[in-house]
Each structure stands twice: as C-alpha cells, then as structure tokens.
C-alpha cells in the first residue's frame, strides 16, 4: 500500500505531466488547480481515472461535492484519507 507522501507525489507528477507547461516547483498541495486552470474541466475525467487506479476504488461522479478537485489536499482528503 502506498504511503500518503507517495500518493501526493503521484498526484503532483500527474498534474505536472498533464498540464505540460507548469514546473514541479510551481505546484504545492494547496495550489488551486482548477481555479488557476492548471487542470481543465475536460481533463478531470482523466484525473478521475487516475485517482481510481491509485486508490483502487470506483468513483461515483454524481455523488461528488463541488470543490473535491480544488487542490492536491482536497483530492487527498476526499479519496485517500481513509485508505492510507
């Protein structure tokens, strides 16, 4: 099972790779990735698949609260907190 630090690092790597322009040092766990358009609404589908793979569980999009994808912190709290 992955540690919290490994999960956060995987999320950071994915966001940097998907954005393609941002440098790793420009992204921390509080960076508002949707608000700052680092990740677009259209890329959230890929992010969901990535989180499902990382957390080994299925995500029901219809039951998600607004703001769960705001930052690495909110993603970690919503999908990994009870798993790690």
């Amino acid at each position: 099972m992955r540690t919290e630090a490994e999960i956060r690092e995987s999320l950071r790597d994915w966001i940097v790779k998907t954005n393609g322009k941002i440098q790793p040092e420009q992204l921390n766990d509080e960076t508002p990735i949707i608000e700052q358009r680092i990740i677009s609404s259209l890329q959230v589908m890929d992010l969901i698949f990535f989180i499902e793979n990382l957390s080994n569980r299925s995500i029901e999009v219809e039951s998600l609260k607004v703001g769960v994808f705001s930052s690495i912190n909110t993603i970690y709290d919503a999908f990994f907190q009870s798993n790690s």
Partner: protein
Amino acid sequence: MTEFIKTVKKLCDASVKDYVNPYSYLDWPEALDIEQWFTSPELISLFGTELYDRMTEAEKKRLSFYEAVNFFSLNINGEKPLVQGLAERLYRRGNEETTRYLHHFLDEENKHMVYFGGFCRRYAGKIYPDKKMVFPRDFEQGEQDFLFFAKVLIFEEIVDVYNVAMSRDERLVPVARQINLLHHRDEARHLVFGRQIVRDLFINHSPRWSDETRQQVRNYLGSYLAAAWKEYYNPDVYRDCGFQDPLEIQEMAYQSAHARAHRKRISNGCIHYLLENNILDQEPAL
C-alpha cells in the same frame, strides 16, 4: 421564410414520418453469447495495436462486446445532459421556431437511451458511469447556447460515423446492428439541425464577444473534441476484459499511431465543417 425555418419544418415532417415506438420495435434476444461481434473490429479501441494482434478471436469478440457496452453507455451519458439542455430551451423567448423541432429532438434522444440502456442492462447488467464533470462559470451573451449546440454536434458527428459503419456490418449481432441503425436514422436529422444552428449561433453572437472569449471558445471546442474521443478508450472496458493495467492500456491505445489516424479520419467531416465556417481556426490536436 428563412432557410433555418424551412429546415426546421422539413425535419419536423421527417421525424413524424419516421416515428418509432422504442418499446415494441426491437426484438430483444433473451440472452446473448458475448463471444460474437458487437462492435466492428476496425472500430475497437485496441485495433491496430500489438496487444490486439496477440489476442485470440474469442478475446477480441469479448472485447467487442464491452466496447459496445461502452459505446452505448457514453451515448447515454452524453444524452442525459443533452435532454436536460434541450428541455431548458423549449419555449424560451426567441426559440419559437426551434421549439417545434426541440420536441422531436428530445423525444428521439429519450428513445435512444431506451435502446442503449436496454442493451446494457439486459446483457451487461450495467452502464459504464460518466466520469465527466462540468464546473459552473460565467458566459458572454449567446456563448452558453452556442457551446451547448456545438458540443452536441461534435459528439453526434463522431457517434454517427460509428453508427453508419456498424449498421451496415453484417458480422455484428443483429440487435447491435439494429440499435446503430435506429440511432443513425434520427441522428442524420439532428446533424442537419445541429450544423445549421451552430453556424447561425456563431454568426449571430461571436462578433460581439471579446477576442479573448472567441479564442477561448475555439480552444475549448478543440479540447472538447479530444476529450470526447478519450471516452472511446475506457479503462473499465479493459478491466472487464481481464487486462492487468487498464490505465496503461488506455494510454497505449490512445497514443498509438493507428488510433491517431483513426480519430483524424472519423473527425474529418466535423472538423472540416467547423473550419469552413470559421468556428475553429486550426485543426485540433487529436
């Protein structure tokens, strides 16, 4: 009578003439052996990859079943917000002429979900869930209406190429062919309506948008086209077929040279229309 009103009248007449009862039209087999062709092999997301070439015929056919479930699911997932958006636009001030056709559009989209859902529930026991999310934002005047119909058009243009090919493919299980044919019969009309309303909305509204908004709209549509395609490479399908790393397979299939050429070829008509009407200013990266 304007060109648009004439088109709306013709489409309404055609919809009335081609009216289908979705509950009695199809003969649903009690059960289906899933080791048959449900998706044309050439349209399977892994087609053209080494992985696909290594699969046995039985494995390919099982994959073709789950790809059909995915194709029908992504249609349901696209049609749900479409029905919602069409209903919101019924009887809106200024929409008097289009409302007549919106009734048919809504009715036909609901029927499609009856066919698609009927297949997925009967033979797969599930629908692959929607993973898309929409975040609320502000729009300039006419931008939201334009984007709504432009997204519908892009989505339906891709789907229709698949429908036409599969409705003619005699290798497919009859019920899969019939669903593709029924869908295409309605979509052919929706595309005529969609192309015209998208062009008219762009002509009427985009000159008043800021240059920044116009560019954002173009960028968004290009990204939307790429995202619409991503749904054809569903990791859940690969998981159901027993593959170990579905996400890796998705990436491999999506990035393969064959898949890129396939997406370009299938999207060609739609992209050409959007470029020709200055709605897009460059070919999106697919």
